[in-house]
């Protein structure tokens, strides 16, 4: 039974530079990043954790900006997913990632949720990490030792666990413009139509060659293991083939086999495994269809 902790004892800080934020977080182990806080505040109310300082990152311009230099997009780690969903360039180049971004909670939550929060919160069921991973997103991380860039796939290491060191924050994400005839898709299973945590999530990115065969494939699953799971067997089954028929059956089987789910209040092992296969197959189909349409347009 959670009691609200002494909220009156908590301090709020709103740095305007990355350096200030890193300094605040690095100097107090009980300081917490306060970005969207859509998970953090309910957790605090339930009695865990008990931060001393909440470090608001949303007044740091760089963390909220969305830009592109023509070949690479830079998306602030705290940029609201509402802004991401409203960004024409991202929506055109990464439709699946943008869909995943739009699935995080209600319109109210969309004003606050972000890729950085979604990834650093390290929930196995988070919606955007599978899509970030199939798109080879990179996370730029700032900390007391300066900045470093890592693959988004390397940030979460387990439920609630990340590779971020003390005082480190994700500053922004880098996403390379996808090659021609490339598209992604994301599907998730929730019992309702909205407002649920994914029971299973599946992201796929497909690149087609001129004949419509798969030239490159990336498939990643959420909520079926402690961290996002890639499905190399499914990716291998696709390469060089048309994304249809038996090949898709192989994708489904490989995806189901790649899972390592748990039984919990939101789903069972058997259900998650079966549906992971279904969603992976469907996500591949949608991504391939989008990629083919791009080919038609060009």
């Amino acid at each position, binding site marked *: 039974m959670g009691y609200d902790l002494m909220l009156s004892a908590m301090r*709020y800080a709103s740095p305007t530079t990355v350096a200030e934020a890193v300094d605040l977080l690095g100097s107090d182990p009980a300081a917490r990043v*306060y970005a969207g806080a859509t998970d953090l505040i309910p957790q605090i109310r339930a009695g865990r954790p008990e931060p001393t300082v909440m470090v608001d990152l949303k007044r740091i311009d760089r963390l909220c900006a969305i830009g592109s230099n023509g070949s690479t997009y830079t998306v602030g780690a705290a940029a609201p997913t509402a802004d991401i969903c409203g960004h024409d360039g991202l929506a055109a180049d990464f439709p699946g990632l943008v869909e995943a971004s739009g699935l995080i909670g209600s*319109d*109210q*939550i969309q004003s606050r949720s972000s890729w950085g929060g979604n990834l650093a919160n390290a929930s196995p069921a988070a919606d955007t990490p599978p899509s970030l991973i199939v798109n080879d997103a990179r996370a730029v991380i700032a900390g007391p030792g300066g900045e470093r860039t890592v693959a988004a796939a390397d940030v979460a290491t387990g439920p609630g666990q990340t590779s971020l060191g003390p005082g480190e924050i994700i500053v922004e994400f880098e996403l390379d413009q996808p090659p021609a005839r490339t598209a992604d898709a994301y599907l998730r299973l929730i019992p309702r139509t909205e407002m649920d945590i994914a029971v299973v999530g599946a992201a796929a990115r497909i690149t087609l060659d001129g004949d419509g065969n798969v030239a490159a494939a990336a498939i990643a699953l959420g909520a079926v293991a402690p961290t996002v799971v890639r499905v190399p067997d499914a990716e291998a089954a696709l390469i060089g083939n048309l994304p249809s028929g038996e090949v898709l059956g192989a994708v489904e089987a490989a995806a189901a086999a790649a899972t390592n789910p748990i039984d919990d209040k939101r789903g069972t092992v058997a259900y998650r495994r079966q549906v992971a296969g279904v969603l992976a197959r469907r996500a591949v189909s949608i991504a391939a269809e989008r990629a083919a349409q791009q080919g038609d347009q060009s």
Partner: protein
Amino acid sequence: MSRVHVTCTINGDPAEFLCDGGQTLLDALRDEVGLTGAKEGCGTGDCGACSIVMDGRLLCSCLVLAPEADGRNISTVEGMATGDDLHPLQQCFLEGAALQCGVCTPGFLVAAKALLDRNPDPTETEIRYGLAGNLCRCTGYDKIVRAVQAAAETINES
């Protein structure tokens, strides 16, 4: 621990209040400012009864720390009507019987206004997904969706 002094704009008027560092904006609006239109239905961002708009963004005020409001522009249900003139959404909710107990109504009105500000002519599906963050346990949503449709028509005609 001394309290935090917040200066902001609420429903178009300058406002200031004192709050605790860890106090939510919902609690500050209700307990420090005295605006009780926003309600706490869950405290976890799952019901939308505490919906407000801050700097143009629709939020669950239960998930916002009050000090964050410093320098911001906040709109609540209390600011929707202009003098005696109700907002078309308020009028359509009344005429369409889109409320029963009424405790979710402020949140729905604020969220629906944000929806129509962004998308003046939404489809039924867009309304339903746009308001999915607001729980109503009385109406089955039918009359709420119809009221939002009617309000959109009224606004677009004027």
